């Protein structure tokens, strides 16, 4: 003992103290788990996660079905977000049970529509009146765009040959860059160009 330094002694003492504590600890996840001092403060009690809870197939189905609690979320998002919701866990169980009974995704979704109505779907099926919902915005833009092109083309024919109005020189880009080789400009045109460039660079 005489050749043991003070630091070495303290180190061995520490090791001797900690070793039994380490040895007493359970393997990860194998031993008893501690109880919370105030379980109610940690939210509603949860059941352990099952494979079906995060199965990609179940998840994909639940993403297409709306929760009925009024939250505007789909079943999967609601049950993994709003932990106070009592509807989405129940709806999840229904999906899992139907899946275990061998129903396909479409059959499960149809069963939900039969039971809860069309509002069970996160998006209405693109059929019948619902087609208006899907197609009207795009169609309106297409029609308006087509009308614009037709209108501008018609005007171009009318305007062709006439002197250009006020505004930037045709073909001038913002860097003042060329375009088609332009004929020599009059002082008036140059003044108009100067104004246009000043406006463009503003």
């Amino acid at each position, binding site marked *: 003992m005489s050749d043991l330094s003070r630091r070495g002694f303290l180190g061995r003492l520490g090791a001797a103290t900690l070793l039994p504590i380490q040895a007493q600890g*359970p*393997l*990860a*996840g194998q031993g008893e*788990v*501690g109880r*919370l*001092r105030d*379980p109610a*403060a*940690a*939210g*509603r*009690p*949860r059941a*352990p*996660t099952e494979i079906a809870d*995060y199965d990609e197939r179940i998840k994909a189905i639940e*993403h297409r079905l*709306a929760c009925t609690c009024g*939250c*505007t*979320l*789909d079943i999967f998002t609601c049950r993994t*977000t709003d*932990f106070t919701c009592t509807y989405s866990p129940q709806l999840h169980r229904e999906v899992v049970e139907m899946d275990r009974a061998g129903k396909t995704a479409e059959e499960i979704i149809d069963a939900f529509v039969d039971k809860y*109505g*069309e509002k069970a779907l*996160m*998006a*209405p099926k693109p059929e019948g009146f619902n087609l208006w*919902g899907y197609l009207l*915005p*795009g169609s*309106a*833009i297409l029609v*308006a765009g087509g009308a*614009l092109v037709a209108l*501008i083309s018609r005007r171009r024919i*009318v305007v062709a040959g006439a002197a*250009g*109005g*006020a*505004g*930037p020189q*045709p*073909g*001038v880009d*913002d*860097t*003042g*860059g*060329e375009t*088609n080789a332009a004929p020599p400009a009059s002082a008036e045109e*140059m003044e108009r160009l100067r104004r246009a460039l*000043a*406006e*463009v*660079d*503003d």
Partner: protein
Amino acid sequence: MTLLGEFCLWVALLLSLWATAVAFSGRWKGRPDLSASVSGAVYGTFGALAVATLALWKGLASHDFNIEYVAAYTSRNLPTGYIVSALWAGQKGSLLFWAVVLSLFAALAQLLTSRRHAHLLPYVAGVTSAVTAFFVCTMLFAANPFERMAFTPADGRGLNPQLQNPGMMIHPPMLYLGYISLTIPFAFAIAALLSRSLDTGWIHAIRKWTLVSWLFLAIGITLGMWWAYVELGWGGYWAWDPVENASLLPWLTMTAFLHSVMIQEKRGMLKRWNLGLIIGTFLLSIFGTFITRSGVIASVHSFTQSNVGYFFLGFLVVCCILSFTLLYTRWPSLKADVQLESVLSREAAFLFNNLLLVGIAFSVLWGTLFPILSELVRGSKITVGPPFFNRVNVPLGLLLLGLTGIGPLIAWRKASPANLRRQFTWPVAAGIVTALVLFAIGARDLYALTALGLAGFVAGTILQEFYRGMRARRRMHGESAAVALARLVARNRRRYGGYLVHAGVLIYFVAFSGMAFRREMEATLKPGESVTLASPFGHTYTLTHVGISQFEALNRIVSAATVSVAKDGRSQGLITSEKRQHVDSFRRPTFEPSTEVGIRSNLQEDLYITYAGSVGGTEEAVYRFTINPLVWWVWFGGFVLALGGLITMWPGGGAALVSPRRVEPGYQASLAATGAAE
């Protein structure tokens, strides 16, 4: 203080009604002497509403729980910052906040508007005062924030836990500032119509106001996304909720206006369209408020259902009829000076950009209202959620992204083939290379690939514009690259600030496309147990449950679940997600326990951890683990967009600081000779 507050509301109502009546009658009867009286009434309205607001804040700060609003939204142990933000946490307080800010903006419009536009100011005062009077009326007759109860509770209910987040102290005010400031451009538009001053004067008068509104809305929407992401716990930032949609609508139409107004300034076109856009934007802001406050459409954001919705519906209908009737009566005076000459022109590109922006706004509005329409037509309720909006709007959004890159490249009036070749070669190459590289490294999602390819194209456009401008300055003035770039931006703030805004939008799109590669899983773990989760970027996270600790904080009991994170075996530290049971000052629970997510964010991805709860009241925890790629870039995109907006609206720059050389005739020839036009 409630007596003083309510008295001030009545004073504000009388003053705003006086200002409205005198402003219009004074102009019609040719009595300019009444203008001073109108301005005085506008300032007085602001003063009265400011005192009313201070009175409510005093009630909130002094815990006067006899006031129904104070008892409903605060408690004795609520942190001070949230007592301040409780002003806009509820229906009644937010109406007062709206009214006071509107009256402030109305006063600023009177003070700051250039004398050149003084002839519009009485009408502007009339319109802003009429809108203010509506809000004060709504408060006094349907949602009085100073209403007292028959008894005084010992403590208040406290603020909803989800509103106890720093984001909620700034997100709603920003959105409100955006919504409210839209009234000023609307007022100038109506003033221009009433006074038949239909030249570009009113547009110059509102330029700063439109940019301010647009910027506040943009910041408010981005902050709202951030709040939803960090607070709501579902792992995303945009859910196409009706109230989110309502905030997007005026932003889209205002963005359209900011583009189309340039056509009116430069070419004298789109006068009717621009007036329609400003009126429509204001109406959409009222419509958004109606949705939020009426409960007509289910939303997680809605205020408590009340009859306030009827007030807003009536106001919306009246504004709509009056505004569009007025526009119709001035229709013949709003003929364009010149006509569009070519589909291949900057003007046409702006027009198509407007078409898409307004089309997307219509699409969002259509989707938001479609459940009501469906119920009316078919009698059956339907849900219109994110899958619908994504299906309809993502293609339109991608088209818009493409136009963001095309617009700046096309020449005014008519582009020549040489011009198109010169301008498009590098940006198109950048887009194609981006898409090919991403495809080569395994990206297969069609929308994400398209978005990223288009982002490459837009980035090419922006970089080319900056590079050419900078190179032109370097050759003309012999400046260093950094100086040339700084001066280029400083002297052309509107243009290059606009490009920065485009860069912000492009960053948004890139970040949004990251969500296509999202990964998520659930797990139940005892202390010491681990799970692994593979990132789309190729590495693997090992997530080990450390344990749960419970402790008491100021107004809540916290259950903190801690996870140790290792990335490919290397420790990355700890992440904690919490359950919070909020309590009042008597330690009584006030709301259901809420969840605080734990987030570890870097440029690549966010590791997003949600503690869902415990099994049997033990430390065995249920977690949801999510990897959200590129989320950091959403916030950065918002920053770039706001920076671009600020540069665009910053005073100075422009013509006053333009180099003398540029205002000489023959500038184009000089510039071309220096090679700037290459």
